[in-house]
């Protein structure tokens, strides 16, 4: 029963996230490209998705302060992998036009090429796991 409840909540949150990511254009390669270049390379300036992201963070800050100030969410400290990992992720996001959620959304949108993107993501995560064990890198405290 508890299990069914978890699945229902996960399904509702996933549906919401997928719908919003798609409706925002965050699964559209051209929109992602304009988000990162602000439309500077030909065409009009485009701050839509940067404002959307910045606005979401600002509202999330307010939301967590109002509703979860005392809650014990896991910490996210700076680690040795923070900068190199973020550089690789940013580069990959710009080339593939998809963050992890967006790759799934693209599949749902019927963009079959996104199966290749998703396969790449799983391969990259697999390789990291192998290297983490081989070189004894610390495991992150929380799955996210």
């Amino acid at each position, binding site marked *: 029963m508890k299990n069914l409840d978890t699945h229902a909540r996960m399904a509702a949150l996933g549906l919401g*996230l997928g719908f919003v990511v798609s409706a925002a254009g965050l699964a559209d390669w051209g929109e992602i490209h304009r988000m990162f270049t602000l439309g500077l390379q030909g065409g009009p300036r485009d701050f839509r998705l940067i404002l*959307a992201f910045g606005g979401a963070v600002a509202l999330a800050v307010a939301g967590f302060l109002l509703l979860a100030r005392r809650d014990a969410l896991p910490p996210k400290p700076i680690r040795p992998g*923070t900068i190199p990992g973020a550089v690789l*992720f940013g580069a990959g996001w710009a080339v593939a036009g998809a963050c992890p959620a967006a790759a*799934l959304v693209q599949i749902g949108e019927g*963009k079959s090429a996104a199966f290749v993107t998703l396969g790449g993501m799983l391969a990259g995560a697999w390789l990291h796991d192998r290297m983490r064990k081989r070189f004894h890198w610390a495991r992150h405290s929380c799955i*996210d």
Partner: protein
Amino acid sequence: MTTYWPWWTVAPALAALTVGHWILVRRPLGVSGVLARFSRVREELAFDRGTAVMQAGSPALEAAMAAAAAEFLGGPLPDSLAAEAPAETGSAPQAAPAGRECAPTPPLSAHLTFLVAVAAGGFLAALSRGTFGAGTGDAFARLIGSGPVALAALAGGGALVGFGTALCGGCSAGHGLTGCGRLMPGSLLSTGVFFAAAAAVSLLLGGLAS
């Protein structure tokens, strides 16, 4: 040209999902870590079985540990120790009312439900716009290419995303929304760096194509 939501609609929707995820399932919203579990399914299923034993079998586990402790001490447990565990309710000194704790990692099947639902959300949104089955778009073809080159770019870019998010411990959801929403140093740094790197690579792609 597809019409997407304006920024003032997207921002509150994403923020509501970010905070709502914590309120509803007591886990920080994140996608890359959930996805990464499916790159090592066998290990994660074993992890689930361990979690289930810890949760369901706690009386048996406690009895076994008490027996082991008694054997180690060479006799029955002192009353002070034996009585402590069940009596400890309510009267324990507590600081400020504690907030909600983070829930344990849900089973892999619940995470599969989540990922499939994300794709289903994209399906419904594309249906409602009437754009289901559209390709990657003109900009992609112009700046990256088509055919095998395009597939190689998607696979390689995807691999960078998979490796990079695992290394920095989050993606645009886990770091960008949840972590930044809680002003976590690792998330703020990650988000600044991955946006800067993505901007640099995007400008480079545009420069190379023109």
